[in-house]
């Protein structure tokens, strides 16, 4: 009963049990940390609809919407010791239309498309982000030994160009009505459940305040002799 093999087995079993308990503890600690995400403002600054092709060689022509926006947000309370990264994204949402062109107002988010996203790593996962060795060294040095810098969660973008130009399967985007921009976030932990922004308060986790922009309409197709249409 005391062979080295049995000892190795017992040690390994104990290791897995301890690792499991520690992981469960870390995952549950997420629910104890309060979350108070706040969006101060989210608004569009420039709207354009242009014609284009999905790829260089494709013959299909589609309409693409380019929605520039300004954002002022404070998501620093989402960073805890268990946060690996924060994925922030802004979607444009609009209701669907019947074939005759009338808007089906009952579902204002029937169409959703991400126009911009950003990955904000926590200091514990900076080494996994796509940054070069010099920047990494500087970042590590500035973050070593300190609590998570709140500026990591503070976003302040002015007239930001969107990352993605969005289209609809029908190919038509011009003059779409009742479009809104909405900010979402996804907290990726080191261990545990992935969480997104919620619509109600769960205990210490407060819902996102103010992540919705005003409704706007997309302009008609930009013609060569007309100026840009603003909302």
């Amino acid at each position, binding site marked *: 009963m005391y062979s080295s093999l049995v000892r190795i087995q017992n040690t390994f079993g104990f290791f897995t049990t301890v690792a499991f308990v520690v992981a469960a503890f870390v995952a549950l600690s997420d629910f104890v940390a309060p979350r108070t995400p706040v969006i101060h403002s989210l608004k569009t600054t420039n709207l354009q609809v242009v014609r284009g092709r999905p790829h260089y060689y494709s013959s299909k022509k589609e309409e693409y919407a380019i929605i520039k926006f300004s954002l002022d947000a404070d998501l620093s309370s989402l960073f805890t010791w268990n946060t690996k990264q924060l994925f922030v994204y802004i979607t444009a949402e609009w209701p*669907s239309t019947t074939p005759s062109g009338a808007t089906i107002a009952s579902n204002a988010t029937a169409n959703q498309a991400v126009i911009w996203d950003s990955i904000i790593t926590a200091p514990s996962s900076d080494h996994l982000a796509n940054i070069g060795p010099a920047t990494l060294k500087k970042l590590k040095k500035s973050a070593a030994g300190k609590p998570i810098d709140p500026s990591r969660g503070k976003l302040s973008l002015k007239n930001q160009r969107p990352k993605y130009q969005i289209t609809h399967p029908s190919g038509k985007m011009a003059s779409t009505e009742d479009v809104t921009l909405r900010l*979402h976030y996804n907290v990726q932990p080191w261990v545990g459940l992935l969480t*997104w922004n919620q619509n109600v308060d769960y205990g210490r986790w407060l819902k996102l305040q103010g992540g919705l922009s005003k409704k706007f309409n997309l302009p008609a197709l930009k013609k060569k002799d007309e100026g840009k249409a603003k909302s």
Partner: protein
Amino acid sequence: MLSSLQNPRQAAAQLMNFGLILTTAFMMWKGLSVITDSPSPIVVVLSGSMEPAFQRGDLLLLWNRNILSETSVGEVVVYNVKDKDIPIVHRVVRKFGVGPAAKLLTKGDNNLSDDTELYARGQDYLVRKDIIGSVVGYIPFVGYVTIMLSEHPWLKTVMLGIMGLVVVLQRE
């Protein structure tokens, strides 16, 4: 080993024990599969297309039931391309329509463009039934063993050899 042949009852008990362990593991897996409604409720990340969130070797727990709300934009989903057996873990970036016929487009966080080239020929969007689950839980590093086993098949033989050795030595 010879001692077990002389004691068939003990050998039968050992065999039954072994079978019990195997079937318990199998039933736990299938039970989890039924609860989550996903054919493969635990997946290992194989590629780096979702870095820095998921690295190769991380374990993901999937959930395939839409109890409170539909699968929406921003969720990380696992899907199979039509007729291919490779599950892909990416994030939903576009959704058009509601219900099971809604069109979904996915993209890996670490990829520059969306997954249109990965889909089957003529398929521009996914629908809900292509998705085998959305990621709800995450455990780092644990799955790296399965990646090592699949990329270095000789490891499987070594592991089986060691397990066989352990069984033989324990009998004596």
